[in-house]
């Protein structure tokens, strides 16, 4: 968070409290303050889509508060009514009326100043896997398959470490060009790719899925992406053409081991009882 922005908003609120501002001023202050914090208060800016949702909720909540009792309703609309009808406000009212086209023009100007960006196509970042895939002639049931070397973690630690080390070799020979040497998705080619390579340090990636999900993504790559994931957009190759199944499972072991996450556990009951 950018503390200076947050503190400035809090300071304004304190001043309003000291001067015993009216309800209408408070409503405006809360809306503007919330916008200022959400828009400018984060080191990593919030995407516009989320900002719109938050501001709509804020506006709705403030409207509900302003109209939730007769007293509050009066306190909200009476100043507006007075401003619009009393002669002492004629000059400010004229200024407000005159500024409306100016605000619209400024808004249009701001819109035109936006930098050119490639058009955005909505895609699901983690699309649903199919029930089963075939990789190098071997069928893999994605709903039930576990990493065949995961159990070595408990039964034979040395063998497990060998697989992890093999996964490391595979990663740094093939994957790190895009996914980065720290697994953060910022490899040397990443800047030229859209969508950007997965960031394995992100808590929403590795721990959210079972290992079979990543086996599918590695084996089938961008061309094997389902419709909702925008097939062909991702530059991820179909690694089943270059790597063995064992190497792909090993690289998954390495990813979890190096990033410090645990894979999502299989559900207790599954489709095997379905039919």
């Amino acid at each position, binding site marked *: *968070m950018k503390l200076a922005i947050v503190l400035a908003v809090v300071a304004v609120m304190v001043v309003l409290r000291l001067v015993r501002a009216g309800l209408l001023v408070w409503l405006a202050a809360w809306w503007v303050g919330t916008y200022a914090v959400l828009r400018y208060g*984060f080191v*990593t*800016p*919030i*995407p*516009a*889509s*989320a900002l719109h*949702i*938050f501001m709509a*909720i804020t506006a*709705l*909540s403030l409207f*509900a*508060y302003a*109209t*939730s*009792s*007769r007293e509050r*309703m009066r306190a909200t609309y009476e100043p507006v009514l007075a401003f619009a009808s009393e002669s002492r406000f004629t000059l400010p009212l004229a200024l407000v009326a005159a500024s409306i086209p100016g605000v619209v023009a400024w808004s249009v100007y701001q819109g035109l100043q936006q*930098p050119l*960006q*490639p058009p*955005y196509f*909505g895609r*699901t*970042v*983690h*699309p*649903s*896997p*199919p*029930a089963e895939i075939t990789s190098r002639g071997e069928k893999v049931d994605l*709903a039930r398959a576990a990493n065949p070397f995961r159990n070595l973690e408990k039964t034979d630690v040395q063998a497990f470490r060998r697989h992890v080390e093999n996964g490391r070799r595979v990663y740094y020979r093939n994957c790190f060009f895009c996914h980065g040497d720290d697994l953060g*998705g*910022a490899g040397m080619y990443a800047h030229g790719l*859209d*969508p*950007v390579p*997965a*960031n394995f340090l*992100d*808590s*929403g*990636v590795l721990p*959210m899925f079972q290992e079979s*999900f990543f086996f599918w993504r590695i084996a089938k790559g961008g061309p094997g992406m389902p419709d*909702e994931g925008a097939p062909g957009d991702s530059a991820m190759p179909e690694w089943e053409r270059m790597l063995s199944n064992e190497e792909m499972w090993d690289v998954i072991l390495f990813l979890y081991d190096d990033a410090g996450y*645990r894979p*999502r*556990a299989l*559900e*207790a*009951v*599954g*489709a095997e*009882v*379905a*039919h």
Partner: protein
Amino acid sequence: MNRRALLGIVGAFLLLTAVLRVWVAVNDRAYRAPVYSTQVQPVPREQGIADQQKAAEAKAKAKKYEAPTYRQFPFVGSRVAIWVVAELHLMFAAFVLAVPMFAFIIEVIGYATGDKRYDRLAFEFTKLLSTSFSFTASFGGFLTFMLIALYPAFTNYLMEVFSPTFLPYVLLFFAEAGCLYSYYYGWGKFHPLVHLALGLAINVVGTLIMFIANAWASFMMTPQGISDSGALVDLYAAFDNFTWMPINIHRFIGNIAFGGSVAAAYAAWKFLHAETDEQRAHYDWMGYVGNFVAISAFLPLPFAGYYLAAEIYAYNQALGIMMMGGAFSWLFIIQAVLIGNLFLAANYYLWLGMGRVEGVQAYQKYVKYLLAAIAVCFAVWATPHSLIATTAEIRAMGGTLHPMLGYLGVMSAKNTAVNVLILTTYVSFLFYRRTGKRPTVSWAKLGNLVQFLIFAASTAIVIFYGIYGYFVEAAVRIAFSVPQVLSVLVAMVLMTVIDIFLMRGAHATGETHWGKIPAVSQYVLIFIAVTFTWLMGLMGYVRSGLRQHWHVYGVLVDSSPDAFTPTLGFAANVVSVCVILFFALIAFVFWLASLHDKRDWGTTQSDEPAHGGHAPKRVSAGS
């Protein structure tokens, strides 16, 4: 020379003649009779036509019977046609199942308390039933014919699996019709206990009907009890499949919420049309009761939905991921926004309702804190896990998740938010209930303190598990929802029990004036009903659409031209059309019900009832 001149004259004459001939030929428009051929055609036309007909007849006779797999519905296609009819059938069925539930509950309250208002209210709700029942049955028949006509192969398969359930279903339907019409026409004609027994019978039979129909629908998504080729092996297993009981529970509770909200909307509509204070007071109270029933049922609904989702995950993880993280996940953001709006609207209505009570309203000062809690929880719940972002925004975030908002997009945050929302709504209700009253019991301060401590402890448990969920793996995190839910439910029960004793014999500081509420509150009731209905349609689409290109998931593939999954926008449009059609039809039902209160043809104004909703006179309640 003369010869040349002669030749020139002859040439000129011939040229002139040729020009004249061409000119006459071009400009001659006189009618010329056509020249008919007198020659006989080599192939007789009549014989040719006769041969063609004969060949066509022979071909028609030789045509082999082939059972069609699909037929096409004109203009909108089969899927949209069946979708709209099924949705309308479902909405009316939900309404017809829900209204008797709270009509019965309200009648029981009226019988127990001897308060005639409840009896009148129960009858007013029941008036909506007979037409709605006819609509439900008509849409049910419509749906069955559409299924047979448009999807004959699929319908045939379902019949093969579930045919033993059809006879009980039809018999139960007869029983439902008998109970319902006896309940409606027998109002005031039987002993109150007999009438109450009829009310109970409608609900039991109606629920059984729903359970049977749910088995068919849930089997399509999570089939069980069949062989690999789809042959029935175990009917009980097919009936009691993975999602059958979760859907039963979810629909049972959802129906009450839906029916309550539509009945409250009916009261709001009547309130806005009321001409006297007495009518306004009656319909304000009616709207309050309908909304109370709706919101009471709405509070545990997220837990029932969670149970259903957990069973879908348990049946097939691919379905679960598709639902929560795949193509359908954005509908859950719409759901979060709508449910957040419902919570906000429900609280807003309660705050407005405090205005009915005259005098100082001590609890109004807490509204801002309740609102803050609701807004924050609403925002958390509506934060998408996968943000829609431009390439520049994604690059700035270093991935698809925002470093801070990413924490709000996961289940731990969502569960915490919804539990706090429920607690906050409950507290709003408690404040509303206490407005205009002052406890007189000696332990009032201690009671208040204990209530506050229970509330604080429950909130702390919910938040603790919410934060702890970030440090454990998914399987453990999912299990955390149980203590969260239990703490909220236990807190609500304990606080209610304490409050009942605390407010017993409370001193009234101001009288409650029913009908003295801003008109905006009535639009809130209508908003709640429309939102409930829309939500039902959207979430129903998610459940049904998850099957993708399968009629019966993994068993019977959909090979029709409509087998693709439509875009979310298209689906939302279809659902919206269904909602509009439903409310148009329900408005017709309201109008029909209002005819009951209108003056008979030829009677004078003095014969007119003072306000709508008079139940027929009955033997005094409790006698």
